[in-house]
Each structure stands twice: as structure tokens, then as C-alpha cells.
């Protein structure tokens, strides 16, 4: 047997073992949004889902003041794909984050209300996330855009 034949045989044996194991059809979606109060140390914590994160960067981005969200009640929902949707009263955007190792990385900041939201809430409407505010404001959001507007 030649070297090339040995190499081919080894590749046949080893290559399937080197491929990455992945699980399909994962549903990350939370059935209901979490309403989380920002602590004095600028942190929100969701006990049920075991999530704890600082929100100073969001406050800086939205209000140009990293302490602006202290005491505010933010709305957080994870969609079926695994993206986190975050917004709150007076927000003009919905922030969509992807989970990374010990970080939430901004995937998209979606502008939703020029005048700012008053009393927003998220609903899980697979494959989208519904954003409502008051009795008439409604948007269907994907992880990077508004897909439907209803006024």
C-alpha cells in the first residue's frame, strides 16, 4: 500500500469524527416577557431564566446617560431564534442582542417610535416578536427589522 493510499484510508476513518455536533430545531422562545427593574448598580436580573446583565451601555446609547435607567422597568423577551429584545418607556428603539460568551452583543437597534414609547410590552408571536404600546401601536419585529406595522 502506498503513502497516498494510507492517507486516504486515514481520512475516511477520521473525518466524520472531526465534524461539529449540532442540535437542530432549538426553540429559545420565552412564553412571556420579563419585566425587570434596573437596580441602583445598573443591573437587571431575571431569576426565572437565570439572566443577569448590566444595562449602562444601553442607557448611554439611548439617553446618552449611563445612569438614566436606574429604577426603570425594562421589558426583555427572548425570541425563538435566541435573540434578546430589550426596550422600555421613553425608548425610541428596540435593542436586539445575540448571546455570546458572557456578553450580549448588539445585533440590531430597531427604531420604533420617534417620540419614544410610553408603556411598551413584548408578546411572543413566533416567528416574530410583537411590540405593542397603548391601545393602537403595534409592530411585528424580526431579529433585525420591522416586518409589519399596524396603527
Amino acid at each position: 500500500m502506498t503513502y497516498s493510499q494510507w492517507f486516504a484510508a486515514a481520512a475516511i476513518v477520521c473525518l466524520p469524527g472531526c465534524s461539529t455536533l449540532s442540535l437542530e430545531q432549538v426553540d429559545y422562545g420565552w412564553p412571556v416577557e420579563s419585566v425587570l427593574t434596573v437596580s441602583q448598580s445598573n443591573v437587571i436580573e431575571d431569576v426565572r431564566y437565570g439572566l443577569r446583565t448590566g444595562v449602562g451601555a444601553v442607557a448611554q446609547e439611548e439617553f446618552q446617560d449611563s445612569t438614566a435607567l436606574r429604577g426603570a422597568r425594562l421589558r426583555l423577551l427572548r425570541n425563538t431564534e435566541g435573540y434578546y429584545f430589550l426596550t422600555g418607556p421613553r425608548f425610541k428603539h428596540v435593542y436586539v442582542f445575540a448571546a455570546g460568551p458572557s456578553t450580549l452583543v448588539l445585533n440590531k437597534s430597531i427604531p420604533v417610535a420617534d417620540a419614544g414609547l410610553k408603556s411598551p410590552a413584548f408578546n411572543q408571536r413566533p416567528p416574530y416578536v410583537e411590540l405593542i404600546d397603548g391601545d393602537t401601536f403595534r409592530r411585528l419585529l424580526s431579529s433585525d427589522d420591522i416586518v409589519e406595522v399596524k396603527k
Partner: protein
Amino acid sequence: MRRLFLLMFLVPALSAPSPAQRSDYALKSDFEQRARTLAARLDSASTTEGIDSVRDDIARLEADFAPHSEFLDRALYPLTFSESVARLRALQVLTYDRVYLIRTQGLKLSELEARINALTGRLDSLTAQRDQLFGELQESRKSLASLREAVRRLTANLAAKDRLIFAIVDSIFLPYGKDLHQVADVQKEAIAQRLQNANVVTRVYEIAADNVKFLDVTQLQGKDYAGLIDQYQAFAARWTGLKDKMTDVAASAAAPPAAGAPRKGARTGAGGGSAQPGAAESAAMQAAHVDSVLEEWHRKLIGAFWGGLRKEFTQAGITVGDFNDGPSFASSVRAYVASLAASKQDPQPFVENLWKQKIDRDWRDGLTREGMLGRTEYAALDRAVSELSKETIDATFIAYIAGILAIAAAVWYFVFRKKKPAVPAAPAE
């Protein structure tokens, strides 16, 4: 024309305000809030009619949210929608049973209060009588008959106080059934208040202390102890039960309410709730105080009992190994019985004069109590002593029989075997 007709209907329809939007979170919160309100109403309910109305409201809650059951099953984690409703229904049934029980017992709280007051008054008069009896006991030491009478009256007084204090305790706990865990916190506070008003722990302590004093100043006889042991054991058992309940009640009264929520069934506002931060610690300290005097009562009672029994042996001039409890007493008696059997000494003084005349007659009731010697062990000891007596009886009995037989033989020989008189000769014709 057709377009105009369509516009007439479609434009108003499109411009009409859409029905109010509702977030899933608001739906979940609404359900939870209504369920909490119903649970609170059940907790504070005091009439079966009120509980019936809550039952209807539970049915209404279920009907209102049934269209969202699939969502609520996921959102109410770890419970499902049906489990949440079932839990409310179970609470409603439990509350109904409790309230119904209180109602059917026919014991209104006001009547109970009156009963507790009456019992407390009788207890106080018995306490006054007790002081007088202790005085009489001191004076009547000269005459044995009057001493015995004073002891009898004092024992009866202490037993009556014992019964009364636990009658008060029963009256306080009776309306709440056997399972105190199912009693609402607000009711536990009421129990704690009544226990405090009736001064229950102090009275329990006093009764135990009276018994200690009684044992200190009284010379008891063997037959007195069985009743005293029974009284102590019953008192200690009832105190243990009361202590557990008091701990439960005090823990509930002292428990801080959950953050952001009023305590279960507790009153709110300035006049509500009498939670005391140190209530549990205070109750534990009081209980420990009673425990210590009860321990002293037990120690003195047991010490007096075995001391009195040792004295019986000494007075009978019989020396046995030292004993101060059931096992050492049994061991000493068995050793003495074995030594008597081996030495062939006359066992009569021990068997007849001490065991039968004193121990078996005066001390048996006390000895047969569990925790002293016990019925089985006493029977075994009594059998061992009786065997000793049997052996001696057998030897004596045989000697007696032999003697009697010898005397009978002698009598027969001398009386019945006398020579018969000779037959007179026939006269010659």
C-alpha cells in the same frame, strides 16, 4: 354605485378603533393578581357563606382565563393554569372544612373566652388554697393522721391545678382543630395572645415548681408514688405537646412578611399585625425555663422513690447492693436472692416481712410503672423471690409431714394396738 356602496361600509370599518391591545405579561399578571386576591379572601374568611362566594369566583376566574390556558400553562411556570385553579379549589375546600368545623363545634370564641376566664379564676383560688395547705403540712408533722390528711389534700389540689391548666390550654386550641399547620397566621396570633392573656406558661411553671416544693417538704409512703409518677408523666407529655404548639404559634407570630406582600391572613395598617421580632426567642426561653423545673421535678420524684425503697430495706435489716433506678434495683434484688439460695439462710425475713408485706403491698404500683421497673420486670423479680420461698416451704413441709406421720404412727401403735383382753374361759358345766 357598487363602489360607493362598498366604501360606505369599508371606510367606517377601517377607521373604527381596534379593540384594546393587551400584553401577554398583563394577562399573566392579571390572572396571578386575581388568584392571590381569592387566596387572601379564603385565608380571612370566617363564614361558610363567604367561602361559597369565593368558590363561585374561582369558577369565574377559570372561565375568564380558559381561552388563554395554553399560554398560561407556559407562562405560570412551574404551575400550569389548571394546577393553579386546582390549588385554589383545594384551598377553598380546606378552608370550608375548617370554618365548618369551628361552626359546628358550637363553641363561639366569646364563650371560650368566658370559659377560660372561669377556669383561670378557679386556678387562682386553688393556688391560694395550696399556700394554706403547705402551711397546714408544716403544722401537722406532729400527728401522723393529720399529716396524711394534709398530704392527701395537697396532692388533690396539685392534681386539680394540673387538670385545670390543661383544660385552659385545650379551650384555647380547640376551635382550630388538631392540625395547627393549617391554621392561618392571623389565627395563630390570636392563639398566642390568648396563651399570653391566660398566663399559661407561667402557670405551667408554677404547677411544676409546686410539685417540686411538695416533694421537698413531704415524707411520702410507698403507695403514694404511683399516683405521683402518673401525674408527672401525664404532665410532662402534655407539656411536650403544648410546647410544640407554642413554638409553632410563636414562630408564625414572629415570622416577617414576605417582601412586597402582606403576611398570609395578617391584618394590615397601623392597627394590624402584632408580630414581635423576639416572640419566637422569648417563647423558646420560657419553654426552656419550664423544661428545667420539670427536670427537677422528675429528678426529685425519682430520687425520693428509690430513696424510700432503700429505706425499707435498711429498716428491715436487709443489706442489698445500692440501687437508684429500675435496672440497678432488679440487679441488687436478684443478687440478694441468689446469695440467699446459695447460703441456705432463712429467707423468711426477706420474703415475708419485706417483699410481701412492704414491697409487694406498698411499692408494687410504683415499681410497675413504665420508666421505673416496669410490669414485666417486676413480675420476673416477684417470681424469683417466690421461688426462693417455695424451696424453703418444700423442705419445711416435708419435715412437718414426716413429724406428723411419726406422731400418727406412735398414737396408732399405743392406742389401737393395745393387747386385746383375753377371752374368759367358758364356765365348767
